[in-house]
């Protein structure tokens, strides 16, 4: 029974990774850049909810809505201020800027909220599900996380495939110059991608911090990097790939933590990244790109 409950816990963690990985994979597919600050947007979302609920004492629904709005605004402003001026710069410059933004958010949070870990009150109040005569218990947080991951994935796939904006996104990711010729506003499309990615990060922060009820200025960085590993694992640029990669990674991490070593669970996740990049650099569902001279 313990194996099954670990497995379900793995799916829960994996669902959170999937939602974060979606933000990475969409931005990477469209802007061709690794948005290092994505993980820290999760942390910002967590702190917004923490402030609204614990400091101001307002309702969780308002907290979640405010977190989604603020994260979206934050994501779009980061893109506008830090990344847009560097659209034509070498990728090394963009990457260093992204690391700078991530570091900036972490240290701003450190100065505002202090170095101590804050305890986070769960936003989700769903009763836990008892199965197999009470032997197997699935917490309400886990249920909500897994269901919201599935709903978001379907909604996002439909949005990208059916809506005009979604198809503009695909066009920009395939060929930016040709998309401009077809009348697609590239800057607007990239801004929308950042907005969607950041809103997803805010939702991920609700799910993540409700299950692991503590938050500090660095608690977004590690899930962020692991979600990027998940995106690479599933094939970068692919929405179903992000989901598959995220869930597999979550299961591997939880099982590794329980059965191999608590301290080495991060090392196991990173080892998987290296193996994937060595064996199949395009990931599970990724497409191969040929480099032209």
């Amino acid at each position, binding site marked *: 029974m313990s194996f099954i409950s670990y497995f379900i816990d793995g799916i829960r963690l994996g669902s959170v990774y999937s939602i974060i990985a979606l933000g990475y994979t969409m931005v990477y597919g469209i802007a061709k850049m690794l948005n290092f600050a994505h993980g820290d947007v999760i942390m910002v979302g967590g702190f917004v909810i923490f402030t609204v609920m614990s400091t101001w004492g307002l309702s969780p629904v308002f907290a979640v809505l405010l977190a989604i709005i603020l994260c979206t605004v934050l994501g779009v402003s980061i893109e506008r201020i830090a990344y847009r001026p560097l659209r034509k710069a070498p990728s090394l410059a963009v990457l260093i800027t992204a690391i700078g933004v991530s570091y900036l958010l972490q240290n701003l949070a450190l100065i505002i909220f202090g170095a101590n870990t804050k305890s986070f009150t769960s936003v989700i109040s769903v009763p836990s599900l008892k199965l197999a005569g009470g032997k197997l218990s699935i917490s309400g947080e886990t249920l909500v996380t897994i269901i919201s991951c599935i709903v978001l994935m379907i909604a996002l796939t439909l949005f990208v495939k059916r809506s005009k904006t979604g198809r503009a996104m695909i066009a920009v990711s395939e060929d930016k110059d040709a998309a401009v010729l077809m009348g697609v506003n590239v800057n607007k499309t990239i801004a929308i991608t950042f907005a969607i990615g950041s809103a997803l990060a805010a939702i991920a922060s609700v799910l993540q911090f409700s299950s692991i009820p503590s938050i500090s200025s660095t608690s977004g960085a590690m899930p962020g990097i692991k979600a990027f590993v998940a995106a690479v694992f599933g094939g970068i640029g692919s929405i179903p790939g992000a989901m598959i990669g995220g869930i597999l990674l979550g299961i591997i991490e939880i099982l590794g933590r329980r059965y191999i070593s608590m301290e080495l669970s991060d*090392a196991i996740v990173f080892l998987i990244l290296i193996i994937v990049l060595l064996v199949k650099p395009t990931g599970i569902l990724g497409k191969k790109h040929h480099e032209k001279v």
Partner: protein
Amino acid sequence: MIGVWNKLNKSTRTNFITIGVIILIYVLCQVMVAAGLMTFLMKGLLIQFCYYAILAVSLNLTVGILGELSLGHAGFMCVGAFASAFFSKSMIDVIENNFIRFSLAIIIGALSAAVFGVIIGVVVLRVRGDYLAIVTLAFGEIIKNVINVMHIGLDSRGFHFSMEVGKLELLEDGEMIIDGAQGIIGTPRDSNFTIGVIFLIITYLIVTNLVNSRSGRAIMAIRDNRIAAESVGIDITKYKILAFTISATLAGVAGVIYSHNITTLEAGRFGYNMSIMILVFVVLGGMGNIRGSMIAAVILTLLPEYLRFLKNYRMLIYAIVLIVMMIFNWSPACINWRKRHSLKDFMNQLMKRFIKSKKEA
């Protein structure tokens, strides 16, 4: 004398000047220490300048010269630091001569970092750009995590190894060498400012000679245009591994100097933050500019110590340095602005005005 000086080629001359300046600063510092003009805090900083400068120069080889972003530089430093401290601590009674023991420690630290450099270099070949940054970050974290769970003790029966706390069962004469997250305590303090400066000069010579050699030009060709470099017959695999390994080895040496200067060596210190700090040195000093890296490392180590009120904002300033430097260097608006307001134009205009006023007079 001047004739000989003029016959030397330009890079040799700049090398002489740079090394001369380093030695001058070194002598000045030693005089100040001897005269009692230096505070205790400043004396402690002297060796930090050396290993941070070595780290910055070695990372510049990967970021500035090879053009690949490595976020795991602290990992190589960690390997060098732990391998050498492990050696020094277990050999403290066997080899009593400090000089021989420290020389061997340097070799061991450098070699073990080089081995990791080759291993990671081989992986690096398969990926590029953003993936490379993540892979190096991953390696740095793996190295840190693995050392964090290592427990090695030494007693009269030999070495004992365990992955769990308190499972070692050493004899009474036994001693813990690596104690998991507590790391290595009590490494002999063999390194000092003089050794640091000597290795800084060696590092500088190795990197500048590499950059000015055939191999260095090949490495820069790969950075500027990989496909073109490949098509003129440059062995990309070979040169990438070469650059990466030299960079890792030098970081390992910095780790040896670091570990032989502090009492408690913890793997936790060699995290992502340390790698970013070294990257900030490189970016502020100018990517590809080796002297710039050294100057930036010294300034950014010195500033927070002297501007105490900035202490809490140190990391924030690092972040802003990264963003502002990149936007200032690459944003089209900033490039235009710099063209319009360059110092050279300004001087030319001054000169023109000066000549005009002379003519009128």
